[in-house]
């Protein structure tokens, strides 16, 4: 369990995160959404211990991540947006680094890499950006960590690789694993992320499961425009409309439409999910 209490972080005079409090429960794949510059990457780096909170506390199973204790480091994996090119073959990199994660599986690494159609004896410094990202994703998932912090994991991946990524995440992470995935590519991941966290300037707007979202908001994919819609987006076959769910009827959540609804009606939507 990850507990964040009154977290604050600034870059010089510019406050990025302010008074953030939330709980992240185990066994879920969280989607961390937000506009550019709202602090998604900062939050992930604070969670994994790369940065020290300037205000408030973070507790991961009772431990402070900035202490960078080996027992916590071997239970987590942080995958940055831009990964480091290593001067080694992918398989050698995996063998050398995998020894630090007790549950690391070399066979799993090979399997995931094969699914991504990347050869394990290829040098990582000779790989394209997409291939390099796939090698790092394969290594991360092969570590069998308890906590994953993935920053824009689908950036740089081609269309088939995005599907392979979704498949790998669902197939190769255990039920106890908690993933926090920061992304702008919500369509790439909307079938796997649940719950959703939406960060806004210095605050958490929403931290809700798909079920909760569906309970509060109705996603209408019809062609008839509803007068009380909070958000309307024209699509080739009709439109997507979002409005408060007053009937209790279930609907399929469209994450992008949900994000845009929250963004357009912060004052209205935030209280709905903070009750």
């Amino acid at each position, binding site marked *: 369990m990850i507990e964040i209490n009154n977290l604050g972080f600034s870059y010089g005079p510019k406050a990025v995160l302010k008074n953030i409090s939330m709980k992240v429960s185990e066994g879920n794949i969280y989607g961390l959404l937000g506009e550019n510059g709202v602090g998604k990457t900062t939050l992930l*780096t604070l969670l*994994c*211990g*790369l*940065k*020290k909170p300037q205000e408030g506390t973070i507790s991961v199973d009772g431990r402070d991540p900035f*202490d*960078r*204790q*080996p*027992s916590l*480091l*071997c239970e*987590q*994996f*942080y995958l*940055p947006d*831009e*990964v*480091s090119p290593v*001067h*080694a073959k992918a398989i050698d990199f995996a063998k*050398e*680094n995998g*020894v*630090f*994660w007790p549950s690391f599986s070399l066979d799993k690494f090979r399997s995931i890499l094969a699914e991504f159609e990347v050869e394990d004896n290829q040098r990582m410094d000779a790989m394209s950006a997409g291939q390099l990202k796939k090698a790092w994703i394969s290594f991360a998932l092969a570590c069998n960590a308890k906590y994953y912090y993935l920053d824009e994991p689908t950036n740089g991946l081609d269309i088939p690789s995005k599907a392979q990524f979704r498949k790998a995440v669902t197939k190769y992470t255990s039920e106890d694993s908690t993933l926090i995935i920061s992304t702008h590519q919500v369509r790439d991941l909307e079938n796997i992320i649940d719950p959703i966290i939406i960060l806004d300037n210095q605050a958490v707007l929403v931290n809700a499961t798909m079920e909760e979202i569906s309970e509060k908001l109705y996603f209408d994919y019809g062609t008839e425009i509803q007068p009380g819609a909070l958000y309307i987006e024209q699509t080739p076959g009709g439109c997507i409309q979002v409005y408060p769910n007053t009937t209790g009827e279930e609907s399929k959540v469209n994450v992008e439409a949900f994000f845009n609804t929250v963004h357009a009606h912060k004052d209205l939507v935030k209280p709905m999910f903070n009750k």
Partner: protein
Amino acid sequence: MNETFNFSRFWTYFKYDLKQMWRNHSKAAILIGGASAIFYVIWLLCSLVFAQHWTTPPIAARLVILILAFAILELYQVRTYGHLTEKKAGSAWLMIPASKAEKYVSMLLVTLVVIPLLFFVVYFFIDGFLALVDPTYGKALLTGAVGTYKEAIEGLSAISNASPISISNPSLLFYTFVGFCCNFLYFLLCGICFKKNKLVAAIAILFGVSLLLSLISGAFLPSFVNNISDSLDETQLAEWVVRMMNISVAVTCITTVGLAWGIWRRIKTIQH
């Protein structure tokens, strides 16, 4: 799980660190270690081209090259762990599941033992090989170095015998070792502190400190030395020299400890 220092985990990490060092820096260390061979070839070519006869570098020039190569190796320490300040590589390093103490000890061992050892092995092997195959090359530096060290000890013994304060052979060896540690740690610390222009920044600070110390010593030392050389006899002068040497050793030791502490602080507090 021991969160501070676990020998098994340290050994795993140290092997990993050695592999990284070998992969990323062994070529440079070997190249610097091969300076004697490079210098020998250049000298030989120049003598053949300009003087039309076979001449090998004199021992004084070879010693200068050894000192220069070692100085370059010292400067190179800004690069050995310089990647720690890079966002991508530095983040990956911080996230490796080993404790800060284990990473720190490994870093010191690689910097102070492994890299200099690799350099000296390569340097003296090439130099010895050249001495073996070319009779005009002269004696190997390693045999000469032992002789030079003995002479230095004898010289110090003469001062020490004349002084009531003694100076022992191990203290010279210790002084040499601490001095070399101090230099290596200084460049290592600059390498992990500065994000850009690491070498320029390190040299600029060194230059600034040297200038400041020269100004201070230049203001007080000449009159002080004149006074004591006039008023002291030979025994007292020898005692004074030994005392100054001991002060110098103490200052170097304190600086080395300070640098080692600085590196530890940096590892503890580095953020990305």
